[in-house]
């Protein structure tokens, strides 16, 4: 199959996504005595265009999703999708780390499980830990927290009240 070099990949994404792409940078790490290069691309996308970006990436190679990491910095809930493409051949994999900023009062974003069914577990975890609404994800019960955990308490939010009486030393 066709492999784009990381620099070509960046140009391709810039050309196709235009102003939906807010930021992009390439991170190269040299590993081992032979100093082989490893490539990570960090990008930030507007939340409405996430599905378009993922569909675009799927045209190159079916992406592997590792996890979605969440962060609450007071103003936004930032989700980082850790994905990778071009696995299967020695030394060719490129990691794509996609950031999306969500509004803290009503965080919501469309689900990617239509394209990547394997993302269901991680979206459910973000939903119960941060309170993010994944549009299109079927309503399922809690995945990690106990069933009787109070409904509106999201343990990973910064200023979450009501957690102190649950914490024991």
């Amino acid at each position, binding site marked *: 199959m066709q492999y784009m070099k990381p620099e070509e990949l960046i140009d391709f994404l810039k050309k196709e996504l235009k102003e939906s792409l807010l930021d992009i940078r390439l991170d190269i790490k040299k590993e081992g005595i032979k100093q082989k290069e490893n490539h990570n691309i960090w990008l930030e996308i507007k939340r409405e265009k996430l599905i378009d970006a993922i569909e675009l990436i799927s045209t190159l190679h079916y992406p592997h999703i590792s996890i979605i990491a969440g962060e609450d910095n007071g103003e936004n809930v930032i989700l980082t999708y850790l994905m990778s493409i071009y696995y299967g051949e020695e030394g060719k994999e490129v990691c794509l780390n996609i950031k999306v900023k969500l509004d803290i009062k009503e965080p919501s974003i469309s689900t990617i499980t239509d394209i990547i069914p394997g993302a269901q577990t991680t979206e459910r975890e973000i939903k119960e830990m941060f309170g993010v609404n994944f549009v299109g994800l079927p309503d399922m019960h809690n995945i990690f927290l106990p069933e009787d955990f109070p409904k509106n308490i999201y343990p990973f939010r910064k200023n979450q009240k009501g957690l102190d009486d649950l914490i*024991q*030393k």
Partner: protein
Amino acid sequence: MKLNKNFDRSLWVFHLNTGSCNGCDIEIVALLTPRYDVERFGIKLVGSPKHADVLLVTGPVNRKMLPRLKLIYDQTPDPKAVIVVGTCGSSGGVFYDSYNIVGPVDKHIPVDVYVPGCPIRPEAIINGVLKAWLKLERIRNESNKAKVIETAKEASS
């Protein structure tokens, strides 16, 4: 240490994991393997608490496992001994300040023997089980003694 002459029964052990990392659990299973081989001492792992003499508890107690822990403790028939294996059950270990952990095991059920270590060596578990064994023998002897005294009293009256 000297074993009592009434030491003629084997010891059946039930193992319960209340949310641990599995390090101690693997070492407990390693006890059955040819290197340590506890079955030659008469110690056996059973599948149900109703057959057990000793409860082996590992892990910091998880909020979800708490009712199960209490249920299993109640289901185990007397006389019984509870051994807590590993530092996280004895005192919490590295796990503290979490919303899902409800404290060391002795907050919820009475504990007889503590075996610290993270994770513990199989030899330390054998040592702990032996201590519990002696305690059980003592309890059995005292209850036997009490019965003998009572029968003697009734016979003489």
